């Protein structure tokens, strides 16, 4: 899509990383996979309003599940960059920081939803229906 990549700090580090074997490990480029992950984060993070923790626990849990693995994958890639390729990629590092920073704020909402489901269960109501927001 773009012929060059912006790299202010690490010389040709970004090109080395973006053209590395890891980038082509999967049938689709890892950058496209990352973009899809961020799109999922954005969609599940923005939808539902402020009371979605009790109206749509499924969405909050999906958001938590999307944020966690994306952060873990980012950390793994940050480790692989210098260890496997002796290079760093500024945009990859920035992306990893964003992924990791999102985990904390996402977890308070996940906790609120989990506690809501726990209260539903303690009342003897259907956790399944509450999870999908049926009758909320």
């Amino acid at each position, binding site marked *: 899509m773009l012929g060059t990549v912006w790299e202010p700090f690490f010389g040709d580090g970004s090109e080395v990383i973006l053209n590395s074997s890891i980038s082509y490990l999967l049938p689709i480029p890892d950058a496209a996979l990352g973009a899809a992950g961020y799109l999922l984060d954005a969609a599940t993070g923005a939808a539902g309003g402020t009371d979605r923790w*009790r109206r749509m626990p499924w969405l909050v849990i999906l958001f938590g599940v999307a944020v966690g693995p994306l*952060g873990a994958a980012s*950390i793994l890639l*940050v*480790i692989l960059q*210098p*260890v496997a390729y002796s290079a760093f990629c500024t945009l990859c590092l920035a992306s*990893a*920081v964003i992924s*990791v*920073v999102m*985990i*904390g*704020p996402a*977890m*308070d909402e996940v*906790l*609120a939803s*989990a*506690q*809501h489901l*726990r*209260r*539903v269960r*303690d009342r003897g109501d259907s956790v399944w229906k509450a999870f999908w927001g049926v009758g909320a």
Partner: protein
Amino acid sequence: MRIAQGVGAIGGLWLMGAPALLGYTDRWASDLHRVIGPLIAAVAIIALWEVTIAVRWPNVVLAAVLVVAPIFGGHPAAAAITGVVTGLAIAVATPFGGCVHHPIGGGWRALTPHHAPEGGST
């Protein structure tokens, strides 16, 4: 005060850059610091928020690995000093990660079988 998180984030970033900045090229030492550095930084950043504040504790284990690793060799002086000093700083700072003043609905503990969640609107 999030002292543990600050020390962890800075220490982790320092470990990532130290092999290049201090010029130690020994594979075992530099790879160890480049693996543990991002892990420590990530754990510290995640633990910045009250709801995930307890996540900081694994950094004690990672810091211990840094301190102990030079014993097994393969560490030039610069790498050994970097690892031991950074590891000790992180280990000593980790208990000072701040307090949870108002855990949301009783916090994660409220999800355990013998602990009912606090009120809250449902």
